[in-house]
């Protein structure tokens, strides 16, 4: 075991869980309702791809969800980063905005879900607002801290080399904070993604989160499982993509 590389251990670990699943379902130790077997899942997946679930195919549901995640994340992260950069530069603005950001950040999104429905109805507006509000404070805090952690000598150096205050901001402050902004964005995307299911509880008939909840209600465990697998694997893929981008863009960070 000691000589086994880590990726092989990961592979073995996944294989072990999969085999246990196959064994338990094949031997009929648990009912299909609680844990559908590989065959059931495969058939379920086929149905979801061919006929879809309540009017939409699986890729369509996933597409709807990703569109919501993308819109909520991008608007929330952009607004949060802009706010955070401004807060990092201006202590006064920080003093003004910090209490709201600090309040919003640890607040479970479900807590304000009801209000959003009352204010914005049950359409896309309330769903995307919820994701926006999930991303904004995380991005704002990351950008603000990114600005605060810039070594003061770096800013003095820029001024001594002839940069105007505006140039110092765009050419030194913003790029200096970039590694922390990107780390914040990855964190925000994770939270937005996790909030998605909650957002899709809001009445509707689309989205992979809604599909899982609705299938569960009708005891279609196979659909629910397929949905969970798809949402989980997509999450990993998105995170890896962001990590790769981060390493490419800020390859110089921390070195």
């Amino acid at each position, binding site marked *: 075991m000691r000589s086994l590389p880590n990726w092989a251990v990961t592979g073995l670990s996944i294989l072990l869980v999969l085999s246990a699943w196959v064994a338990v379902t094949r031997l009929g130790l648990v009912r299909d309702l609680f844990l559908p077997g590989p065959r059931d899942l495969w058939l379920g997946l086929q149905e979801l791809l061919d006929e879809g679930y309540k009017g939409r195919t699986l890729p369509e549901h996933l597409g709807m969800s990703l569109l919501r995640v993308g819109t909520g994340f991008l608007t929330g992260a952009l607004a949060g980063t802009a706010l955070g950069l401004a807060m990092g530069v201006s202590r006064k603005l920080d003093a003004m905005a910090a209490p709201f950001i600090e309040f919003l950040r640890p607040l479970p999104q479900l807590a304000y879900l009801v209000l959003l429905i009352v204010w914005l109805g049950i359409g896309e507006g309330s769903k995307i607002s919820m994701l926006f509000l999930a991303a904004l404070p995380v991005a704002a805090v990351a950008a603000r801290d990114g600005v605060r952690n810039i070594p003061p000598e770096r800013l003095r150096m820029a*001024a*001594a080399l*002839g940069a105007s205050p505006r140039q110092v901001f765009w050419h030194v402050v913003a790029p200096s904070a970039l590694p922390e902004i990107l780390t914040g964005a990855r964190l925000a995307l994770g939270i937005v993604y996790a909030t998605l299911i909650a957002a899709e509880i809001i009445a509707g008939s689309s989205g992979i989160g809604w599909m899982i909840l609705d299938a569960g209600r009708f005891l279609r465990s196979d659909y629910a499982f397929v949905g969970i697998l798809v949402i989980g694997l997509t999450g990993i893929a998105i995170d890896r993509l962001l990590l790769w981008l981060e390493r490419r863009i800020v390859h110089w960070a921390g070195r």
Partner: protein
Amino acid sequence: MTRPGFVRFDEVSVRYGEGAGAVLALERADLAFAQGDFVCIVGPSGCGKTTMLQTLAGFLRPTGGTVSLDGRPVEGPAPERGVVFQQPTLFPWMTVAANAGFGPRMRGENRAQARERVEYWLRTTGLWEFRDRYPYELSGGMQQRLAIARALCNEPKVLLMDEPFGALDALTREHMQEELHAVWRRTGMTVVFITHSVEEAVYLGTEVVVMSPRPGRILERIPLPFAREAADQDIRRVKSGAGFIAARERVLSLIWGMQHDA
């Protein structure tokens, strides 16, 4: 062409804090020197040497007195006064060439001209072949050479260096002294150089200014011949000459004397 009083400190005082807790970091410092001088400031910690440099850089406003360069009072940082810190303080997301060209780029200088100057200084400092690399790919000595090249690309009237070689190993440090000395001889530029190493100060300086602490003030100015005489002589030969050793010991005894008085 030398003009007296190219750099002037007139009764410059710097006080930190207020009331009983106030610290006088610099007390009525008077110092003037000519264009082309290489002035080394030495003294124990707390003697106000960095404070003095910071008023000239424009990072710190004196509580009293004035600092001026070429007849104009210093008001804030400006590219006419190049700065090199102990840490290279490079911009890590920029390549070597982009770091060197930062000043000219910010000042909106003619691109072709700026590129030429960047190439000149990168070649002079032996960094030209690393121009597309990033600072983290360079050694400590190379990073500090880049910091110096970056300051020189702005063609400053005076170069201010605060312990620029303090973080380097002994061998690299000596090489850097030689290189800086060569650059100074070639350009004839004005340098203010802070160091803890008396040997370094005596080798590089046309003058050594010795400062004493609590409150920080100028104790003595000692003119030195070695910087102008050394020419192409080997650095070890200069430093082991009898005259050099005598001058070094004289400065050292001033600093030692202070510590015994205190």
